[in-house]
């Protein structure tokens, strides 16, 4: 039915009172960027080796793979769900790639199987959450054990080694000068996910679901379909990470990428994504990935042991989250 052109009787409501640029300046992402710059400057004073392009490029490997997953995880957490099985998906995907290599399959097949395994795991999670309405935190804690458990059954104490030369490029190759394949992939995926979340209908639905899933459903949104796709995306990015990591390490053990799920979630939360869903951004996650990379690299140069590093990352997370709240409380 067509309605008559609405009469313009009501008062004029402005589109915006605060321009997007001004809003960005006051945002969490801006604050985090400042922290990142400060860490960068501090690092360059602390160690003479820090500012070397090749060293920085090397250092990027400690966050690129996790960040790929973090982009998809950010969208999932904004939609009010979570996927804790991502590290186990890496283990399973890598194991499948190893088995395919033993069977003599060529490199393109290995890559395809790695990605497909990721997708299949994501579909399994998505089916349980979106199809059967189970809580995602419970489902993915379950599949976290399940997926890695399958790897252990297939591999036991053993390992797949001796991957073909052709596979090495994904984790060790360089596109141009110091820019590794992984670093370029990180940049490309940041743009792709940034566009997906912030510039498409799908991204808008993700925010709507995260803020109020019931009202989103009452607005004609296919909530379960969106949720299912989001699980596919974390599965797929975990598959991509599995290809890169397997290529970089040149071997597969069932303990591969242990504990990564928490580092990925840390990256997402540090990036300003609300763990309760509904808000956050991809630029925030990009900056958080860089900050975490810089901290780890800087401390590495200073020969700080790994255990201490994880303490510092944890303290950074709590500190950055708590400071704005403390600041508000003090001002009141």
């Amino acid at each position, binding site marked *: *039915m067509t309605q008559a052109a609405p009469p313009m009787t009501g008062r004029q409501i402005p589109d915006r009172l605060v321009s997007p640029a001004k809003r960005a300046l006051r945002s969490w992402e801006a604050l985090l960027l400042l922290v990142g710059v400060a860490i960068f400057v501090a690092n360059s004073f602390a160690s003479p080796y820090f500012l070397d392009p090749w060293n920085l490029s090397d250092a990027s490997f400690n966050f690129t793979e996790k960040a790929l997953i973090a982009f998809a995880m950010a969208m999932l957490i904004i939609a009010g769900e979570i996927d804790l099985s991502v590290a186990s998906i890496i283990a399973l995907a890598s194991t499948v790639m190893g088995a395919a290599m033993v069977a003599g399959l060529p490199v393109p097949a290995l890559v395809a199987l790695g990605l497909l395994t990721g997708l299949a795991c994501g579909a399994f999670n998505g089916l349980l959450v979106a199809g059967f309405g189970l809580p995602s935190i419970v489902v993915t804690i379950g599949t976290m054990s399940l997926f890695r458990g399958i790897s252990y059954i297939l591999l036991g104490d053993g390992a797949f080694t001796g991957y073909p030369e052709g596979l090495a490029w994904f984790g060790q190759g360089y596109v141009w000068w110091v820019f590794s394949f992984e670093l370029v992939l990180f940049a490309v995926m940041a743009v792709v996910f940034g566009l997906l979340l912030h510039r498409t209908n799908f991204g808008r639905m993700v*925010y709507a679901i995260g803020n109020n899933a019931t*009202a989103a459903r009452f607005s004609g*949104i296919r909530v379960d379909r969106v949720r299912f796709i989001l699980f596919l995306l974390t599965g797929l990015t975990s598959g991509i990470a599995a290809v890169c990591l397997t290529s970089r390490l040149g071997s597969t053990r069932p303990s591969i990428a242990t504990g990564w799920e928490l580092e990925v979630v840390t990256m997402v939360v540090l990036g300003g994504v609300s763990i309760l869903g509904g808000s956050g951004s991809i630029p925030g996650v990009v900056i958080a990935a860089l900050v975490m990379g810089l901290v780890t690299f800087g401390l590495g140069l200073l020969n700080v042991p790994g255990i201490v590093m994880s303490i510092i990352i944890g303290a950074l997370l709590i500190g950055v989250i708590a400071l704005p709240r403390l600041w508000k409380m003090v001002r009141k």
Partner: protein
Amino acid sequence: MVNKGTPLVELKDISISFGGIKAVDHVSVDLYPGEVVGLLGHNGAGKSTLIKCLSGAYRADSGEVWINGEKVEISNPRDARSHNIETIYQTLALADNLDAASNLFLGRELVGPGGFLDDAAMEAETRKIMGRLNPNFRKFNVPVSALSGGQRQSVAIARAVYFNAKILIMDEPTAALSHKEIHELYDLVEKLKAQGKAILFISHKFDEIFRIADRWTVFRDGQFIGTGQMADVTEAALVQMMVGRAVDQIYPKRPARIGRPVLTVSGYGHPTEFEDIGFTLHQGEILGFYGLVGAGRSEVMQALFGITRPSKGACRVGDEIRVIRTTAQAVEAGIVYVPEDRGKQGAVKGLPIFQNVTLPSLARTSRAGFLRLAEEFKLAREYTQRLDLRAASLDQDVGLLSGGNQQKVVIAKWLATKPRVIILDEPTKGIDIGSKAAVHDFMSELAAEGLAVIMVSSEIPEVLGMSDRVIVMREGRIAAEFAGAAMTPENLVRAAVGITGEAA
């Protein structure tokens, strides 16, 4: 029954208001030992509010409560208990995962030496009291969630009796009971009456009131209308008191040209919520759905909108048979729904106004799946302005708006989809007078433009003032349909509560 001596309970001149609206307005009620008083009144007449003041859930703004001839303060449920007042709510407030004994002693547990719970003693006591009240009760060691409505009810009543309640408030106690269980409840009420307990009995069902009450008291719009002996009153007289005089409020209903059928529903059924629902809605028509709370009106509407799935029946929109299983399919078919629960189901708080408006229309405002903000602002401005929305900017979080303005955003959202049928579920509930008038005005305008409107409402003046035709639902079925001169308050109420026969 003759009322002698001091009343057990006297509520004197009680007033309670919520946000400026008087829910109970200078009401007085008294209750003597050994009598059952039936409280009657429409949705929103103030019955439940008044008894919550006696059970300690609300505090009265003014007025006094006297128990046994003494003035008392009841400011929380604990105070109510100390005055031997027990309430049995319609929703049967029991802790689902605990068994009968644990529920009976909830908050007043028996403790053995050393401060540990004495489960054995509690169960023994429970068996004793249940043996007296409901000898057939056997399910002592299972969670009460596994019990039937009647069994749960008897646990709640046993709790009241065990702790020596003298005053029992029963708020629609038969709502969840089977026919047989209702008769068991009547017997139980007789027993309690014989023991000298005073019972306030709230019910919408006239046969119940006539069966067990000694005295009646009628409320309307928060005001006391009258009281008297059951023996001296007729159903017709009670209905007359419940609905009051004619509607004197002015409604902006414009005559609209009723056109072709837009929506035809036939044989809609759902295993638990509704049965045998069929009606036809025409272009330009406002079809009112009236009924008591819980009559299944919202459930039918949500089935039409794809929230719940009907188990049988068919739905035709225009000339096409439509199977609606998701809200997306409903929107596609041109059926939209403005829900009663704005906070949970209406506006997406946290998202700005313009994004709320465009949410179901993204396919139109975007290109190849990519957002076009300029188009979104344009669409949002067009429809929010038409509804005279009051907001600082379209970029403002919708959660910061008043209830009435949130409602306007939800309506704007649906109009932007250019629907054929708009279903409004209690569209003016809990919004201020000004917004209310704006919503009514707007409904009328929409119908005049040829949209088909369904309005679910529990307010008789609104239903009569706005509708071309009214369907009354009762217990999940269509009880009656009225149009023209037959649309009277009496007819609506009689159909809603289930009185057959002609109005007096």
